[in-house]
């Protein structure tokens, strides 16, 4: 812990100069997960590691911020629901949340899923708000972007996959769902290829969802770190106005990308659910 802020600044810049002169590994070090909360130059908070049944479960930065996103989500949406239950007139805060809720229901769920869309709206709302808050949390200084972790986006995509298959099988029956994957009126000799293609297609869609969200989030942050690191790589302060200006622009672009990626993930989930539930080829 530093008591002299000037010494803190000079020590940090010396460390950054030394790191930047040794290649670019420090970018990945800042962007990926770690077992401590990093508030340099004001110190670090080490996070606990639990040993349960032979497995080492560590509480990492991304875990903490995932919990923060989930708690914010719960507080905001439960307050909105309680206000709606008490009186159907929204106040300023719940009105703003209701705009987003109605957007997800009327622009994403209803056009993509068609009839029977009400059952899937809670899942789509949860996905949209969680990814939105997690993405926005990553833009605050000294925090971590949870959705830039491939494990988290793979889990979200896997849950989306489960909801899609469950919805499709509930509507069409297990065998009827697989039969409906293959379009009508194709020649018999094409059947083996079509089966392989359709079953592979079932798995590539959630994979694409996961990688799209992960890559978009991590690419933005890597660009910001690289632009700021340009100051240390060049070793001069004269690059700073250009560098900080461009980093500011990329930060603003990141706001757009954060909301857009939440919308795209939710919309593609809704489209896949619609394709599974109403199988008309």
């Amino acid at each position, binding site marked *: 812990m530093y008591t002299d802020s000037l010494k803190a600044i000079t020590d940090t810049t010396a460390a950054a100069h030394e790191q930047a002169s040794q290649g670019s590994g420090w970018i*990945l070090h800042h962007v990926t997960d770690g077992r401590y909360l990093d508030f340099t130059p004001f110190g670090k908070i080490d996070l606990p590691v639990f040993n349960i049944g032979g497995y080492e479960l560590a509480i990492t930065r991304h875990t903490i911020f995932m919990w923060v996103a989930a708690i914010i989500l719960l507080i905001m949406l439960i307050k909105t629901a309680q206000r709606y239950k008490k009186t159907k007139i929204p106040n300023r805060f719940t009105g703003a949340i209701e705009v987003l809720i109605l957007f997800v229901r009327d622009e994403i769920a209803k056009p993509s899923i068609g009839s029977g869309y009400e059952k899937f709206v809670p899942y789509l709302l949860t996905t949209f708000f969680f990814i939105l808050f997690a993405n926005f949390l990553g833009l605050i200084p000294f925090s971590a972007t949870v959705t830039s972790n491939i494990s988290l986006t793979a889990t979200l995509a896997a849950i989306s996959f489960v909801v899609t298959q469950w919805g499709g099988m509930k509507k069409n029956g297990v065998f009827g769902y697989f039969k409906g994957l293959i379009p009508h009126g194709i020649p018999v000799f094409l059947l083996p290829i079509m089966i392989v293609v359709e079953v592979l297609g079932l798995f590539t869609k959630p994979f*694409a969802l996961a*990688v*799209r969200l*992960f*890559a*978009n989030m*991590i*690419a933005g942050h*890597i660009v910001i770190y690289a632009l700021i690191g340009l100051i240390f790589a060049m070793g001069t302060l004269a690059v700073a106005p250009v560098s900080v200006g461009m980093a500011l622009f990329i930060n603003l672009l990141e706001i757009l990308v954060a909301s*857009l*990626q939440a919308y*795209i993930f939710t*919309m593609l989930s809704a489209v896949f659910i619609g394709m599974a539930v109403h199988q008309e080829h």
Partner: protein
Amino acid sequence: MDLAHLAAGIGAALTIIGGGFGIGKLAAAAMEATGRQPEAGGGIRTSMIIAAALIEGISLFALVICFILAGK
């Protein structure tokens, strides 16, 4: 001489050429359509943003592979 880093750089450049070309064509079509019928501007803008995000998703798949290569 590290071929993995060279491959990462060339791969990223080619990916961005493809992505930029695709999104450029998309934006040109959107501008033309909005010029023809300004009242449909909102709907065209929404569709353009969605299509741009999907094209960018593809180019970022290739970029992830370039990151893996550059980390070798």
